[in-house]
C-alpha cells in the first residue's frame, strides 16, 4: 500500500480566520435513486447517518452524508475506512441501479475556522452564506473552480474541491482571510 498523503499535507494559514487543509479525508460518491429504500438503507448501514434532504448534510456515527444533486450523495468518512465502506455499500445496494466510487484521493478539503467563516466563503462564492446553517450543504464555485461547503458549527466551515486545484483553492482562501480584509 502506498503512503497516502493529502493534497497540501495540512498546510495552514492564520488570518482573521484560520484556514487549514483538513488532511486525509475519505470521500465516496454514491449515485442512485435517492428516494429508494435501498439507498437509504445502505447509507444508514455504512455511515449511521439518515438520508439528507435537498441541500442538507447529515451526520452519523461513522461519517457525514451530503446531498449533492437529485441523484448523488457525498459520503464523508474516515480515509482508512473508505475502501471498506465502498465495498459494504455496494454489497448492500445489491441489484439496485447505483454507483459507489471512492473519490478520497481526487479531493482536497479545507477548514475555515473563526467567527467570520461565512464572510470568508462569501468573498469567493456567489452563494448566500448568511442563510447557511450547520446541516446545510451548498455546491457552488469559489472564484473559477467548483466547490462545495457546509458548516460543521457556527464557526467552522468545511470546503471541498478537486485535488487538481488544491493549491489554487488554498491561495484563494489564504487571500480571503488576510488580516485587514474584514468586510463587516
Amino acid at each position, binding site marked *: 500500500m502506498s503512503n497516502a498523503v493529502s493534497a497540501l499535507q495540512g498546510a495552514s494559514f492564520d488570518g482573521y480566520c484560520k484556514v487549514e487543509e483538513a488532511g486525509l479525508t475519505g470521500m465516496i460518491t454514491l449515485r442512485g435513486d435517492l428516494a429508494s429504500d435501498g439507498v437509504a438503507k445502505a447509507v444508514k448501514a455504512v455511515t449511521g447517518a439518515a438520508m439528507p434532504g435537498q441541500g442538507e448534510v447529515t451526520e452519523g456515527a461513522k461519517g457525514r452524508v451530503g446531498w449533492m*444533486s437529485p441523484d448523488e450523495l457525498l459520503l464523508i468518512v474516515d480515509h482508512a475506512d473508505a475502501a471498506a465502506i465502498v465495498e459494504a455499500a455496494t454489497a448492500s445496494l445489491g441489484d439496485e441501479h447505483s454507483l459507489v466510487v471512492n473519490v478520497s484521493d481526487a479531493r482536497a478539503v479545507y477548514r475555515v475556522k473563526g467567527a467570520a467563516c461565512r464572510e470568508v466563503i462569501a468573498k469567493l462564492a456567489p452563494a448566500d452564506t448568511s442563510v447557511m446553517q450547520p446541516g446545510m450543504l451548498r455546491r457552488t464555485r469559489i472564484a473559477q473552480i467548483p466547490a462545495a461547503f457546509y458548516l460543521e458549527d457556527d464557526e467552522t466551515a468545511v470546503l471541498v474541491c478537486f485535488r487538481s486545484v488544491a493549491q489554487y483553492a488554498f491561495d484563494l482562501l489564504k487571500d480571503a482571510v488576510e488580516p485587514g480584509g474584514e468586510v463587516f
Partner: protein
Amino acid sequence: MLILECPYCGVMADETDLHGGGEAHLKRFGPGSSDDDFETYLFHRKNPKGVHFERWRHVSGCGKWFHAARNTMTLEVYGTYPAQTYEPPKDLVAKIKKKHPEWGGYE
C-alpha cells in the same frame, strides 16, 4: 445579474453558477427529415423581445439542465421548471399570459 432558482436544488443560483443553453423546447428533426426541417432545427432560433423560454444548466451546482421563462427586455424571471417536459407548464403560461395579455403565447 440574472438569478434563477434551480428547480432541483431549490437554491437561488446566479448567472455565474449557471450556463446558458439557448432556446428551450426545440423539436428535433433527425435522419429522414426534409432539408428545410433540419435546417430549421439546427439554425433557426427565436429571438423575441419579451417572453422567452430558455435552457439553463446549474453547472457548478447539481449539474442538471432546467428550463426558465424570462423576459429578454425587462430581465424579469417568470419561473423555472425541470427539463423533463416537452412544453412549459400550463400554470406558468397562464401566469405570464395574465401579466402580458398581448403576449402571443408559447409557440
